[in-house]
């Protein structure tokens, strides 16, 4: 309890003078704050442990080299080192922190956001309207079959009954409709991918 009363600055100066036990007191005093701070950024126990260790290795080196100047407080200085090391970690891995539910199983591995983002949904609208325009260019009989098949989801049997042609004719019209659409797309260099 007595050691609790010794301010950080005095402990740091004792440590620089060679009192190794002062470091133990400093780590004991601040370990929880520093560890939680790192964990709040990386959400991973092992990485937190590594960053925590690297932080204090840096602290020890700086203090032993006599490069520490008591401008500010000890804890904010250590926090800044930890913060920089966290940034280094993410730079090295070039990814953002991912939230892990602290177990083997992560809910995000089964859940995914299938909805399109703003850009992709704009592209999708554009592609769909391009396709519609190309369909409008088709000869009437081919257009009719294609619309019934693709947009009304009718079978070729239903289409043949509705249009009064044989199934083979309906199939043939569908085939030509697709061939003609491909031609138009190629000729005009239309990109229809999302």
């Amino acid at each position, binding site marked *: 309890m007595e050691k609790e009363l010794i301010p950080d600055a005095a402990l740091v100066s004792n440590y620089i003078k060679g009192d190794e036990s002062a470091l133990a007191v400093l780590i004991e005093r601040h370990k929880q704050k520093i560890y939680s701070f790192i964990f709040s950024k990386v959400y991973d126990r092992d990485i937190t442990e590594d960053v925590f260790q690297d932080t204090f290795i840096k602290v020890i080196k700086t203090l032993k080299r006599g490069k520490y100047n008591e401008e500010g407080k000890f804890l904010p200085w250590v926090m800044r080192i930890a913060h920089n090391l966290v940034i280094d970690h993410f730079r090295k891995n070039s990814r953002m922190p991912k939230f892990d539910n602290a*177990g083997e199983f992560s809910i995000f591995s089964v859940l995914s956001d299938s909805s399109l983002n703003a850009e992709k949904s704009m592209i999708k609208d554009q592609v769909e309207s391009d396709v519609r325009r190309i369909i409008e260019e088709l000869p009437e009989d081919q257009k009719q079959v294609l619309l019934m098949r693709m947009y009304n989801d009718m079978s070729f049997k239903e289409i043949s009954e509705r249009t009064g042609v044989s199934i083979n004719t309906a199939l043939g019209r569908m085939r030509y409709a697709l061939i003609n659409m491909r031609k138009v797309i190629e000729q005009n260099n239309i990109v229809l991918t999302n």
Partner: protein
Amino acid sequence: MAKLYSNPSPKNDKLLPKDETISYLLNYSKALSVISYNKLKFEALLN
């Protein structure tokens, strides 16, 4: 009675470094000595 299949999430209230990490750091500190020679500083790890 409906069965609950979800596992209770482990509590993270004890956010503390491992004892091994602390003891490694203290031993590292004891082993590290910085030797000054003129204006140069050399680190030496004595195990």
